[in-house]
């Protein structure tokens, strides 16, 4: 299928988010992007699985965001972000999924965590179970399966099925999590050679 050239493949918002047209964002009114985030083709975000408005008085009826994404995040091809859901007070509800800043999600990974901290590198083909909590500066290796409800403390390196903490991020490794360069390397200008 030929690409419609004049329209361009990328949408760049005024906050600097670079969203590919082939990305699959469902329920975009419940998705909040922090800015300077890159979403590659075939990435999928289920914003429609939002928390249903509670019946209690005084709860904010306004935008119940399903997915919060921080700044400089990078969602690679084929990855999927879904809010986790569980039975809470008798009813099944979806809780919001929060990503911090500088989160890299590799190709084909599926993230159903409750929170993901900042400076997290998730390699490809990773499955993060529901309500997992991943703190800051965590590196998740390829093919890991994180069971539901797991807590991964900061500065860990995690691998395996089910995931185990196999190491610690050394002090010199903090800079490796920065995604500014990666954000800059994504060329949304159709005139750029190659890409």
């Amino acid at each position, binding site marked *: 299928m030929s690409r419609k050239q004049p329209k361009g493949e990328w949408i760049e918002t005024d906050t600097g988010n670079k969203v590919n047209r082939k990305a699959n964002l469902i329920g975009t009114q419940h998705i909040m992007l922090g800015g300077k985030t890159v979403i590659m083709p075939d990435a999928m975000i289920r914003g429609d699985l939002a928390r249903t408005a509670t019946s209690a008085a005084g709860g904010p009826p306004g935008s119940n965001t399903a997915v919060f994404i921080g700044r400089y995040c990078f969602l690679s091809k084929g990855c*999927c972000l879904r809010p986790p*859901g569980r*039975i809470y007070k008798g009813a099944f509800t*979806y809780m919001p999924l929060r990503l911090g800043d500088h989160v890299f999600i590799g190709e084909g990974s*599926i993230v159903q965590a409750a929170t993901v901290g900042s400076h997290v590198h998730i390699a490809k083909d990773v*499955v993060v179970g529901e309500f997992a909590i991943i703190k800051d500066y965590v590196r998740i290796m390829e093919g890991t*399966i994180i069971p539901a409800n797991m807590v991964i403390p900061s500065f860990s390196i995690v691998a395996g*099925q089910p995931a185990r903490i196999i190491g610690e991020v050394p002090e010199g490794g903090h800079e490796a999590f920065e995604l500014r360069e990666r954000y800059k390397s994504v060329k949304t200008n159709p005139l750029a050679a190659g890409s």
Partner: protein
Amino acid sequence: MASNKRQSILPRVQAGPKAPVNFSSSITIADTAILTGNHTINISSDSVIHPRSKLDSSGGRVTIGRRCIVHERTHVGAPGPAPPSSSASFGVLLEDYVTVEVAAVIESGETTIAEGCLIGIGARIGKGAQLGKHCTITAKSVVSPGERVPDYTVVYSNGVRRLDKRGVNDLKNKAQARQIEVLRRLIPSNPAKFKD
């Protein structure tokens, strides 16, 4: 064509032959679900089909029981690596209360998934496999073709099996029913699109 690719990037327009369908009245099926194939696709009452899931009956009839949930990016009825045998009487049968999670692949060819099973994320059920009741296939596990998995088995890390003795079947079924109630409100359903 696009329907031959597994878990492929499918365009919004449905590619491949439109399958003859037989829906119950109370199902929830998203707009961007993909139903292709030559044989009938039956979906029983109260089931939910998420967007971007693919039900493929080119290898045989696909039947989905009551109160099932089929998540996105799944491929129910995928052709296996071997050419599909024409002797298969049906493609895939999912009984009641089955949940098929994101990116799971269920190959067609008399594959049976009994009541209450949970097929985890990215799992792969081979052609002709028969899963017992209330099995749990955790994420990325593989059930080889033709395998018979006994009831209440849990298949987890790298193929290890064990029996699940929790006895929480009723709890699970009730939880599934509640989840379906909520999903029905969240996903706009459009069964008419798939009927001829």
